[in-house]
């Protein structure tokens, strides 16, 4: 152990990064839950913070680490605990990667229902801590809909669980939901039980060009009432279209369809008729995979110092996206859910970023949601208020945080309102 005293941040990367240019006082690599408990207990006794880490794909997400502490790497907790495939549930340890989980499920022609970028590195625990999602959340649901059980080690060193392993269960408070999106601030997640579903027989992506942006909103409204039942409705501004696929650029509306062969065939045909007058291409099954993957990976793209996510009412998406300068932002909207991913293009200064974000945030708030900054240079984080406009329930959230982590040892500083 590194014999550090007081509130000093190590200035050498010896024990590895915590994010935002800060380094861990030490790194622990537990392989069992007991080792996690020991590590947490040891940190707590020393009054030091605990920073749970998985695939380290999102270390810079959120505000900077608040005080010195250890990185607790859960990637060694990577086993399948129980996979009763005929029950369509699986219980895994939190450090398992999404890719590993997918290959386990594929053996029984089943799948994990969340689209996650960098699946070979991202861990299930990390996906749930950050509430990650992608295009198919429109049809398959957000992470909170798939989780039915959770275990986590709290700052007193105990492993606590909520929920269970059966698909329906109302015994006790719903810790699985509480932990979803909690950014590691309530405990080190060690195990999760998830609902899984059969892999679809067929899939297709219908990629439509929308030459005139005035047509976007009517098109989205029409899709909303379409006879088809899309699993994804993605709106891409010209810059995002260009990055993902279409060298020509231009606005795109991408509709994902999945299901039985007949279902997808019928929907493709039907959608074609509903899209009368638009130019579109249909990509089916394996041939659609690279495009699905582009839609999923967009949020993790390397370019640019600035990235934001807005959430708002779906009916406001078209006007919101159109208000974003396509020279400055590449934009992908999960339009059916009202989730808008914005990637800053070119050079930004802190002032310009602050001005743009304040304006767009105000719009998102007016339209029922918020706007968070998923990535920006560390020194800008305070001014850009990375977690957005304070919400009415954050004071209550702080009470819940105090109930489970009274000393504020778990991932201090990183989440909203100092949770």
């Amino acid at each position: 152990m590194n014999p550090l005293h007081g509130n000093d941040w190590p200035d050498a990367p010896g024990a590895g990064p915590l994010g935002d240019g800060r380094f861990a006082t030490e790194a622990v690599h537990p392989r069992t839950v007991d080792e996690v408990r020991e590590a947490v207990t040891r940190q707590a006794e020393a009054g030091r913070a605990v920073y749970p880490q998985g695939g380290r794909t999102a270390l810079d997400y959120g505000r900077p680490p608040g005080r010195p502490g250890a990185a607790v790497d859960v990637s060694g907790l990577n086993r399948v605990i129980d996979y009763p495939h005929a029950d369509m549930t699986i219980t895994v340890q939190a450090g398992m990667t999404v890719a590993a989980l997918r290959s386990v499920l594929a053996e029984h022609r089943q799948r994990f229902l969340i689209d996650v970028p960098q699946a070979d590195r991202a861990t299930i625990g990390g996906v749930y801590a950050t509430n990650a999602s992608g295009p198919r959340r429109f049809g398959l649901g957000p992470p909170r809909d798939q989780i039915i059980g959770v275990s986590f080690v709290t700052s007193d060193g105990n492993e606590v669980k909520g929920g269970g392993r059966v698909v329906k269960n109302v015994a006790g408070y719903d810790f699985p939901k509480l932990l979803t999106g909690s950014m590691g601030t309530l405990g080190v997640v060690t195990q999760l039980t998830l609902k899984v579903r059969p892999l679809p027989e067929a899939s297709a992506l219908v990629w439509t060009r929308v030459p005139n942006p005035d047509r976007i909103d009517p098109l989205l409204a029409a899709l909303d009432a379409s006879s088809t039942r899309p699993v994804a409705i993605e709106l891409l501004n010209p810059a995002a279209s260009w990055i993902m696929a279409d060298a020509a650029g231009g606005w795109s509306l991408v509709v994902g369809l999945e299901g039985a062969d007949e279902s997808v065939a019928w929907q493709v045909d039907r959608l074609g008729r509903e899209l009368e007058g638009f130019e579109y291409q249909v990509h089916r099954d394996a041939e659609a995979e690279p495009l699905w993957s582009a839609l999923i990976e967009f949020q993790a793209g390397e370019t640019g110092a600035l990235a934001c996510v807005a959430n708002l009412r779906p009916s406001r998406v078209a006007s919101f996206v159109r208000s974003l300068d396509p020279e400055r932002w590449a934009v992908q909207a999960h339009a059916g859910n009202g989730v808008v991913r914005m990637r800053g293009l070119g050079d930004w200064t802190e002032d310009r970023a602050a001005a743009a974000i304040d304006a767009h945030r105000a719009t998102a708030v007016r339209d029922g949601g918020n706007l968070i900054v998923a990535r920006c240079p560390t020194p800008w984080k305070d001014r850009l208020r990375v977690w957005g406009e304070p919400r009415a329930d954050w004071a209550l959230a702080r009470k819940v945080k105090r109930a489970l982590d009274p000393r504020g040892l778990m991932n201090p500083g990183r989440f909203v309102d100092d949770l």
Partner: protein
Amino acid sequence: MSAPASPTTASRLLADLTAVVGAENVLHHRDEMLVYECDGYVIEKQAPDVVVFPTSTEHVVAIVQVCNRHDVPFVPRGAGTSLAGGTLPVGGGVMICLTRMNRVLEINTRDRYAIVEPGAVNVWLTRALAGTGVHYAPDPSSQTACTIGGNVATNAGGPHTLKYGVTVNHVRGVEIVLPDASVVQIGGVAEDDPGYDLTGLVVGSEGTFGIVTKVIVGLTRDPEGGRTLLAVFDGVASATEAVSGIIAAGIVPAALEMLDNIMVRAVEDAFHFGFPVEAGAVLIIEVDGVEAAMDREAQAISEVVQAHGGKVDKAIAWRTRKEPEYMAIWKSRKSAFGAIGRVSPTFCTQDGVVPRTALPHILRFMEGVSERLGVRIANVFHAGDGNIHPIIMFDERDPDQVQRALAASHEILDECIRLGGSVTGEHGIGVEKMAMMPKLFTPEDLAAMAAVRDAFNPDGRCSPSKLLPTGGACIERASPGRRASA
């Protein structure tokens, strides 16, 4: 905390509450209290001192302030269909009945949400949405009576939760009056607000976190088409094997319900839908989605049914859920508990859950319990979710039968736990199953849950002695519940 100690404090409490809501929204005479001394769980009874009917959030705030000033407990109540004693006013105090806050405030089909007051009855929302192309998915069998607020508090399920999820999957936010009388807006109309998912935590908290005064629910598109099959089997064993077979075949039905022979007869006697009364068991199997895919899905199900020795007796093809035959079959299913009265004067039902693959086992186990203890057990339940509702029949005048019925309940729930399941899939813990919590959860789990409850409800004045066992004492029930449901 204590109930009003003397007539003067009691009358001061009454006067303060009346000043808030007006005399027309207060009940306090002894005979008026009878209805409120229990809900669908009738084993324990306790009348509140006063029942108040707020008509606004401001009323609820003022009522909670009065309760705090007088240091009396308060408990929220919706329609009182809880099967777990969730509305029991333990220690007396004030019952806050939300049934007069019952408006549907806003419907926004494009943004797929509705905002309702907590006392709105579940089916009112269904009706308000008819013809819009979207619906509110959770459809408990009690939907013609129970309130959305009660559904939120219990995280209610229903037959269609197999594919569509339970209440929590369809709630985006709530307005809640906390036990300190502050009003907090949790969540909102948009998805993915930054911060903890407190909405997910409040749903299912059984009234122990505060009084929910508004609910923002998510709306789901109506399916484009569907098939509802009635499959007949010679016994529950083959029927449950078929349930496992359907799920294992990669089919995700919208609903998958089972009725055994006793229930088939009772339902047929009552509703004359045309259920085959000789059947050992029937399954109601529904698939929905795009019409173009329905025939093959229905065919795949028929094949699994046949492979397990069953046969499809009826197949209803539908494009909307308004078709008469469709409505009739579901009315029969959802009213099954009403029909049970024809078979036995008194019965209790349990709400255990097992992994769906363990259904054949738990059904065999229950047959064994039934024979060994000499109690009749009927079954009508959400088979696709593994959520059993054994109906244990007894004569409450015979103490020996009562004891045996109770023993049967315990054995069945213990077996659910042993199989990795739960003691409640949708009805809640309430007061009824508090003693079961330590069998499902460790002391550390329960301590964490208590800490979270205390964050919302530090003085424990809001619905005291519910959900979490208090102290070490586990109360043994003297008699099983009488009403039932699914």
